[in-house]
């Protein structure tokens, strides 16, 4: 079926709480090994240190020129609570997607 001419893809619903151990194992398999897990009252904080892509510069607009850069090493924080996860990372989109996909593998879906 189409919605306004765009192919309709039903989105999977993710639910439940994250299995932290399974998530850490999945990240390790992705080559992310510098992982620290700090237990908190309502979940945990996962701290990753990952070598980022080389420093990049980008022009965001023809009129307003900014030079954005990534840090050579990214400190990534993942706040895990019951029923919610917040991934805080730098601007390396490839890395963010790798972490997101690892997380989605560890959640239940409908």
């Amino acid at each position, binding site marked *: 079926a189409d919605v306004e001419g765009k192919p309709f893809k*039903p*989105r999977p619903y993710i639910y439940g709480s*994250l299995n932290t151990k399974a998530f850490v194992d999945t990240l390790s398999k992705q080559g992310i090994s510098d992982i620290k897990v700090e237990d908190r009252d309502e979940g945990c904080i996962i701290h990753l240190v990952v070598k980022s892509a080389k420093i990049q510069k980008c022009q*965001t607009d023809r009129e307003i020129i900014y030079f*954005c*850069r990534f840090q050579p090493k990214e400190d990534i924080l993942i706040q895990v609570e019951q029923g919610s996860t*917040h991934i805080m*990372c*730098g*601007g390396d989109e490839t890395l963010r997607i790798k972490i997101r996909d690892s997380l989605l593998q560890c959640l239940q879906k409908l």
Partner: protein
Amino acid sequence: LLMRGNKLQLVDADEALKDLGIKEHNLRFTSTLYVDETGPAQQLTEKVYQLCKKKVSDHPSQLSSDGSISVSDVMITISGEDEETKSILVTWSHQNQKKNNCS
């Protein structure tokens, strides 16, 4: 499709989840970009706000009194008041990204 009593009913996915007692996992992201920009953070906030209004015209952009910019459910905050390098923090939800079918 949900079985309610003896009847099968086609209901909205959100309603079906509620009916089944399943709570969707709330997944959010914050990406940070570092920008070499002297001057007050407010000046960069205004420039980014104008850029959002121009580039994302199909979603309304709003500038709050606390200095944060919101575009739909995407929140942009700029920090580093007196520093030469400013941080631009962009926060959004996975659910909303899927709904809008954007990458």
